[in-house]
């Protein structure tokens, strides 16, 4: 009889029901998204003007420790890694050993980092020099705003470092 029409209406109905189902799934996916307050907290601002040279400052960015180290007069900047802020050079890097994630300690007298877990060592600019770490300390996205460092945003200095690292 009206098999084909019943078939058509049935399919149309099924399609509309499916659309509703898909829309619901999309809404459910969005409900899982990190909250706006979490995303906005993904930025940490640090005023570096008051920092002492050769003394490690640790900021927190997205739950991770970030090493900010102001160079003293006898510390030489490393091309492609050290950042110039105002009149001084700084190291800005994530303080997690690239071997297995422990937090290395800064040795002010030797201007280097030593990781207690498996003996890895990094230079003042975070380049690995001894032990198991496979690569230098990661550099977080950052932006410079005068003497303010904004972690989490990609500024031109960060992009330049990344470009150089990619080339090397």
């Amino acid at each position, binding site marked *: 009889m009206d098999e084909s029409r019943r078939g058509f209406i049935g399919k149309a109905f099924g399609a509309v029901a499916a659309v509703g189902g898909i829309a619901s799934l999309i*809404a*459910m996916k*969005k*409900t*899982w*998204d990190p*909250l706006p307050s979490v995303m906005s907290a993904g930025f940490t601002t640090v005023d570096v003007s008051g920092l002492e040279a050769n003394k490690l400052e640790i900021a927190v960015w997205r739950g991770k420790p970030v090493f900010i180290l102001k160079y003293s007069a006898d510390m030489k900047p490393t091309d492609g890694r050290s950042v110039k802020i105002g009149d001084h050079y700084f190291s800005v890097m994530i303080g997690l050993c690239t071997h297995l994630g422990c937090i290395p300690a800064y040795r002010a007298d030797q201007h280097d980092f030593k990781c207690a877990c498996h003996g890895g060592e990094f230079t003042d600019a975070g380049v690995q020099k001894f032990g198991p770490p496979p690569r230098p300390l990661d550099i977080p996205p950052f932006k410079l705003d005068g003497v303010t460092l904004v972690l989490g945003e990609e500024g031109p200095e960060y992009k330049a470092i990344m470009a150089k690292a990619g080339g090397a």
Partner: protein
Amino acid sequence: MAEFKKADSMLEWFDQRLGVVNFAKVMMTEYWIPKNINFLWAMGVLLTVLFTFLVVSGIFLLMYYKPDVNMAFDSVNYTIMQEVAYGWLFRHIHAVGASVVFLVIYIHMFTGIYYGSYKKGREMIWVSGMLLFMLFSAEGFSGYMLPWGQMSYWAAYVITEIFGGIPVIGDELVVWIRGNFYVSDSTLTRFFMLHVLLIPLAILGAIVFHFYALRFPHVNNEEGEFFDFDEEAEKYLAGNKKESKVVPFWPVFLSKDFFVLGFFMLFFFYLVFFHYDFAMDPVNFDKADGLKTPAHIYPEWYFLWSYEVLRGFFFEIAGVSGKDLGLMAFGFANAIFLVLPWLDRSPMVKPANQRPYFKYWFWFLMADLIVLTVYGKLPPTGANAWVGFASSMTFLVLFIALPFITKAEAKKVGGK
């Protein structure tokens, strides 16, 4: 091991291992439902859909809700309602769904009473259904506590206080239920456990049992007519679809359910988006304050008739205090529906309008429940208190009289 030949199709592969073809016949295409039914028969599917909405929306609320007296209110009214993408939508669906599910439960229940679908082999369907009503009531009550607003707190306080009326163990029982001397964090977390895990599991089990209990006696029909389902099924399968008195669950019965569901959803979503104060009472947007009782406290609408029976007895009778009388009447009111199949002494399975005495009893009960519901909301002062007393007494009398009314009816009809 059983011998498995190579399957010719994916369907046959699954059928060899899981018996899916037979399963589909038994559950769907050869599950026979009477043809002479009206849209009230769709309430069961409506309830299943609403329950699914409640569980799914509940799952998403559960991701962000914090069951702690200091964090609960803000986790709901700030995080979920204003920060989480579509959080407000899940909360609205959950709150409105919880309220509307009771509307459909009552329609479903009174349909059963009207058509006599609780007797002559269908007693277990009725009992499991009433058990579901009680489980849903407990689920609603425990859920309402979670936002930790003023209504949440004071409803929890008043209702847990009721148990103090039980002789000998009352006072200790109240402290045991609350986990503290007063409604506090321990009360919130245990009711959270009940609401999220224990009661939903019990509801799922009861639903499965309720569906199972339907199979042997078969679904009732508009005339209460008894017929041979096997014979009618044969007619249908032979191709005599129009002469057969039955239809298969899928696709025929469910197609009608979906149609009713569609228009019901219009009503439901209108409430969810535009008219939800009845389900999310404004008083509950004040944070719980144990030192300040709101000017007007009342339970959710579906508990009002029961609440009115509780407070309908406000003076001493024959040496028993109003409070104790109310408590006893409240216990009676909530339990009596369970034994309805045994209170009805007539063997007639007929719609109420074809039962000479039962029809008056039914509509009298409907009117009484409406009066109890409305007066359960109004302040119990002056004339209202007396109306409450009269309608509570009427409720008790109606049920006590039912065996006598139906026995007389049976005699009258049998005598013809």
